[in-house]
């Protein structure tokens, strides 16, 4: 329940990020932040359940595609520095791109020396990696779905066959966040995950190296959005403005390891420039027959 001068924020950001950034927000704007931290799927569900009497003002950092699905419940808003955003990330007027998420392969170098590790999707299909590749489930995790879409985009007509070959090597984890932990613990020798997740483990000293697959790497945005009918819309706007500001975005890149969507902010230290990667423009689900059909085919591909 929002009080005067407080903003209710639903976020999928890690607690560590929330704890770093929000004090700055409160200090800079003088507003009080009331945070509900959940998984991104839970946030979507919760906003839907509360549609009758929304409790949230802002959704902060859930994937763009999820925000697009929620667009009926969102209030379009354009922050002042909108023109500084890389246009490749702008997908829908109901939400604002916030950071760019890059999909990578994390390799446990204790178990799998980097020089013989696979570098492409095609190499991942080699049966010798059977049981070696950790991945989240596409029917549960948005990032796993992005990876599926990437394969389908990269390999065109042969996409499903190629994916099925790769999937034969998969070990499924319960969430995408668990993939780098699996790899770091040696449960598998490598895993498909998000760049910033993997980066944390690298920084934490785990024997992990990051491989950007050379036959196609995806980079997709997550976003911030204003909830339609929220209790404190002005506060919500103030939050979005702050989140998109250059200083906040720089902090994200420098201290937290996220890639900014702003063209005027550098990537995190130790990561290649986006420009040096083989970025593919991942086709939307609708191009493959819609979510239902893709999931059905995915199940066949993984042999369920």
């Amino acid at each position, binding site marked *: *329940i929002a009080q005067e001068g407080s903003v*209710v924020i639903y976020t999928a950001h*890690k*607690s*560590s990020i929330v*704890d770093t950034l929000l004090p700055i927000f409160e200090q800079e704007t003088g507003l009080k932040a*009331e*945070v*509900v*931290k*959940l*998984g*991104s*799927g*839970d946030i*979507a*569900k*919760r906003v839907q*359940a*509360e549609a*009758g*009497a929304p*409790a949230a003002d802002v959704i902060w950092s859930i*994937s763009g*595609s*999820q925000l697009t699905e929620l667009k009926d419940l969102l209030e379009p808003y354009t922050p002042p520095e909108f023109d500084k955003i890389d246009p490749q990330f702008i997908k829908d007027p109901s939400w604002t791109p916030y950071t760019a998420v890059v999909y990578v392969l994390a390799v446990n170098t204790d178990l799998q020396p980097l020089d013989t590790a696979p570098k492409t999707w095609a190499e991942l299909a080699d049966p010798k990696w059977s049981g070696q590749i950790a991945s989240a*489930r*596409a*029917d*549960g*995790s*948005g990032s796993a*779905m992005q990876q599926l879409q990437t394969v389908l985009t990269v390999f065109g007509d042969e996409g499903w066959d190629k994916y099925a070959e790769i999937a034969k090597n998969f*070990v*499924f*984890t*319960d*969430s995408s*966040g*668990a993939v*780098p*932990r699996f790899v*770091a*613990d*040696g*449960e*598998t020798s490598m895993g498909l995950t998000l760049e910033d997740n993997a980066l*944390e*483990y690298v*920084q*934490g*000293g*785990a024997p992990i190296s990051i491989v950007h697959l050379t036959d196609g790497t995806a980079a997709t945005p997550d976003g911030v959005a204003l909830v339609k009918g929220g209790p404190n819309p002005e506060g919500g706007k103030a939050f979005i403005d702050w989140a998109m500001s250059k200083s906040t975005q720089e902090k994200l890149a420098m201290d937290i390891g996220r890639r900014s969507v702003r063209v005027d902010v550098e990537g995190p230290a130790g990561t290649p420039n986006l420009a040096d990667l083989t970025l593919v423009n991942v086709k939307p*689900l609708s191009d493959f027959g819609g*979510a*239902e059909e*893709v*999931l059905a085919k995915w*199940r066949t591909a993984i042999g*369920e």
Partner: protein
Amino acid sequence: MTAMPRFNFWTVVMILTWVLLFVLLFIPVGSVLVSSFYDQSGNLTFGNYLKFLSEPRFHQAFVNTLVVGFGGLAGALLLGSIMAFCVSRFVIRGGKFVSLLAILALVSPPFIGAYSWIVLFGAGGVVRGFLRDLGISMPPIYGVGGILIVFSLKFYPYVYLMVSGALSNVNRSLEEAAEGLGLTPWQRTFKISFPMVFPALTAGGLLALIHAIADFGTPRLLGRGYNVLATEAFTLYSAEIGSNLSMATTISVVLILVSMVFVLLQRYMSRRNVYHGNMINKPVRMQLSGWRNVLAHVAVYFIGLCGAMPVIISVIYSFRKTSGPVFQDGFALQSYERILFNLGDVVRNSLTFSVAAVVLIVMVGTVVGVLVARRTNFNTALLDGAFMVPYVMPGIVIGIAFIAAFNTGPIVLTGTALIIILSIFIRRLPYTVRTTASSLRQISPSMEEAAVSLGYSPFQAFLRITVPLIVPGIIAGGMLSFVTAINELSSSLVLYVGSTMTMPVRIYLLILDGDFGTAAALSTILLLISGCAVYIAFRFMGRNEQALL
């Protein structure tokens, strides 16, 4: 009692109980479940059910559910009864400590439990590594076998708690009579003792079965493609893309129906087996000697320690040095430092919510338990059945139902502490109702009748005679409620707001972030609090603690 329609205490209780059930359960949950009859765009349809019936993956999941359900049940029954029998009948050194372990095994925060098993027995697990160094190769814990092992160890405390209480109340003469007739102690146990505690055994088994059927964390983490209905429902519900709420609800409904079948089955089975003891001729614990003594101790400690393994691992890991999400060699208090800054709030929330809920539960649950066990008529039988509903209702369904029901309309509760307390209350109430009812069934009603003949109203007689006699049962139930309430996650995850965050929610979110060290630290604190509560409960029971331990 008499068949006269009188407007007495129990009639009032009966009416209030029904009102409670309707407001907090049937109306909210009913409206959610009805959504399984609508498709994504809101048209009335049976499509979801047809789909369930036609798709092989659901069939497979259904079969798998039964496999892990019954496998887990068998394991829990085995471990729970062995432990209950040893602890209640033999002199076990440190028996109280072992019981404490069993209860604490229930305090294993979501995901961290299964993760602990991976740490120990996964592909890169500590134990496997150790054995590999010794030249012994052991398969990793993944797959259906692993799920069953974990379920057995995870759910045996339900059986243990229920059965140990009942075992110490069996009329001693019955067992002696059997032995006098030439049955070995072993045969006697099976032919007399277990039939006597059958209601408690099945009640504990039912809890284990229902939890095994509803658990999705363990199969998801350890199953490696072994899908059960709970994981299917969870996937459909929580998918970030292509989530299908009405199909998820459909599977939940199937799950609920399956559980309900077992509930009814249990009630049918224990229907005839109502044995009253006189509470005077209680069994005494035997001092074993030689190899039997060693065996009993080994069994009890083995089960206790294995069951508490996740808890032990999380305590150890909470003290490990970390760098970001990565554990380093050596120990440090880093993880604790990181949770310190808002620890107070979540601890206070958890404590107040669960204490408030448990106080409500114990008061209401005891009275309703008596109503159900003693004033048997059609109405109370119906009530007893109705109380099975929260038993089998997944927490998430109740959470969603509460949001939908109390977000708008006459009562607005969203965002308050009350909504969380009420959700815990309604979910855990059946525990106390059940434990109360089952301990009551062991006490001959003639004692209460004696009190009535001495001039006590039925309510006073209940308070003065029955309550003291079932205090161990009530405390066991209350403790179970407390321990599960303070660990309650699934419904509060849906209901919490920033100011009402609880420890399990925070642990869950930390795990979601991959921050295991911090999660382990918070779990350890949760464990400490639960441990204190259990300890206080033991103290409080005074000379009656025998009955529980």
